[in-house]
């Protein structure tokens, strides 16, 4: 294997350069606001901007709502498929992969067509129902990741035995789902949740076309009108992504504690 080493190091070096140079450049650029000297002015301006706070807060709330709705939708479904309807597994898996096939922009185009103000279900008529539509859209976007995470989690525990044990102790179905199954796959759900958060927080297309005051459209606005603030925002967004992935590492490890990976 020795003959390969040089090539391997070279490939790794290229990868490292490709990963770090844009980050360093972005950071350097974000410090250039004050002429002639480096400063954190761009960050101060961005963080003090009330629209930053409002849009970021809005997107955080939408992301949390997406996680809750997504979990409530995916966990019972994956559980039920595992326990009762294994025959439907290919169908459900196919559906969860659809959002990878249908681009987000096409999906939201479809929403605007069938839920517009003159349709049978005018969801875009009121603010609350448009917000709801956005959340459902994000649940759809996150579906492949959420379903896969939960399904992997369910496969790593003995769903049948746990269910039967809980049943024989007299637990009803809501109790089984929320106090037996859910805690057992918590690491998987958390992994899916952080990934969902990373996807939703800066999403642009759906929020923009549904005309919601989210972080993505705000990023676009700043990007089109300012020079150095976008770089500061990019660094902030990078740290949010980094935090989400780091948390997946932390919580995901518990999920695999007894599975094939560590054996």
């Amino acid at each position, binding site marked *: 294997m020795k003959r390969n080493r040089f090539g391997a190091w070279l490939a790794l070096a290229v990868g490292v350069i490709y990963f770090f140079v844009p980050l360093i450049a972005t950071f350097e650029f974000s410090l250039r606001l004050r002429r002639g000297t480096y400063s954190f002015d761009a960050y101060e301006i961005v963080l003090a901007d009330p629209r930053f706070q409002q849009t970021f807060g809005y997107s955080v709330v939408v992301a949390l709502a997406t996680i809750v709705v997504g979990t409530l939708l995916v966990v019972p479904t994956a559980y039920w498929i595992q326990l009762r309807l294994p025959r439907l597994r290919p169908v459900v898996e196919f559906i969860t992969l659809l959002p990878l096939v249908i681009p987000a922009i*096409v999906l939201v185009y479809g929403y605007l067509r*069938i839920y517009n103000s003159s349709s049978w279900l005018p969801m875009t008529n009121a603010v609350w129902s448009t917000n709801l539509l956005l959340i459902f859209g994000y649940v759809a976007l996150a579906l492949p990741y959420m379903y896969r995470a939960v399904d992997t989690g369910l496969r790593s525990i003995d769903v049948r035995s746990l269910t039967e044990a809980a049943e024989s102790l007299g637990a009803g179905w809501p109790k089984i789902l929320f106090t037996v199954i859910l805690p057992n796959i918590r690491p998987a759900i958390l992994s899916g949740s952080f990934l969902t958060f990373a996807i939703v927080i800066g999403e642009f297309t759906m929020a923009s076309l549904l005309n919601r005051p989210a972080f993505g459209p705000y990023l676009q606005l700043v990007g089109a009108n300012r020079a150095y603030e976008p770089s500061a925002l990019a660094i902030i967004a990078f740290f949010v992504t980094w935090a989400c992935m780091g948390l997946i590492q932390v919580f995901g490890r518990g999920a695999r504690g007894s599975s094939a990976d560590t054996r």
Partner: protein
Amino acid sequence: MSVNLQSASVSVAPKAGLSPASWAWLGITPFFAFAILFLILPTGLLMIGAFQDANGSFTLANIVHLFQPSILSSYRISLEISAASALGGAVIGFLLAAAVVLGGLPKWLRPTLMTFCGVASNFAGLPLAFAFIATLGRTGLVTLLLVNLFDFNIYATGFSVLSFWGLTITYLYFQIPLMVLILAPALDGLKREWREASDNLGGGSVHYWRHIAFPVIWPALLGTTLLLFANSFGAIATAYGLTGSSLNIVTILLYAQIQGDVLHDPNLGFALAFGMIVITGVSNGAYIWLRTRSERWLR
């Protein structure tokens, strides 16, 4: 949820088992309702709309109208950028994954690289566009460094971060890590014994890759490349942040159509979306098919 409870009380009574299948399907009604309302129906009606005229009767005119020069060119640029970034991402990502899995590098490098790839593959959209403007834009760090150190102005060569190559290089930032993430487990499937057997029989490195490793991993390789292709074909935010609406790719055209009916024909807009679904559908379908093929050897 409430539906779930109903089906539950029904099936607990007759001592569990698989039998009351007639009620079991109720448990997944919420999921199917969601899928129909927010995935299948919206997309399906768009696709039907692509085959209707303004009065709702069947026509192929919208599909035919897709073949006008301005729309064709937007599809072409999208396809070219997707192909270039998918191929580039596949080649570099493969080399990187091979380096870390098979290259005999220190063991701690692999989990580190995987974490970085997880971050980079999710660092997309507008922030990524900003990052590359700061890197390769007119006053970007790399642009300035090249001028100052080597007296080489990349903008004198006709390059622009807002152009075809600029967008391709930017897309590579999430394409390469995605390739690494998906391919590394597949490369694990290449058993050490195969290499040893090849070595013992006098096969060289080239021989091993050409006759043993490559025939086993090509479905994974090709399949993942197709996934990368579809991934960049449907992307819009990065391109929009980078170029505004100056680069005529199909997602940006569709975005303008949704906002302001720039084609002056709603049904033509539906046809535009239909064309996109066909392209991403075919490449994703091929990816799934190739993945099942590759799973035969790589366990």
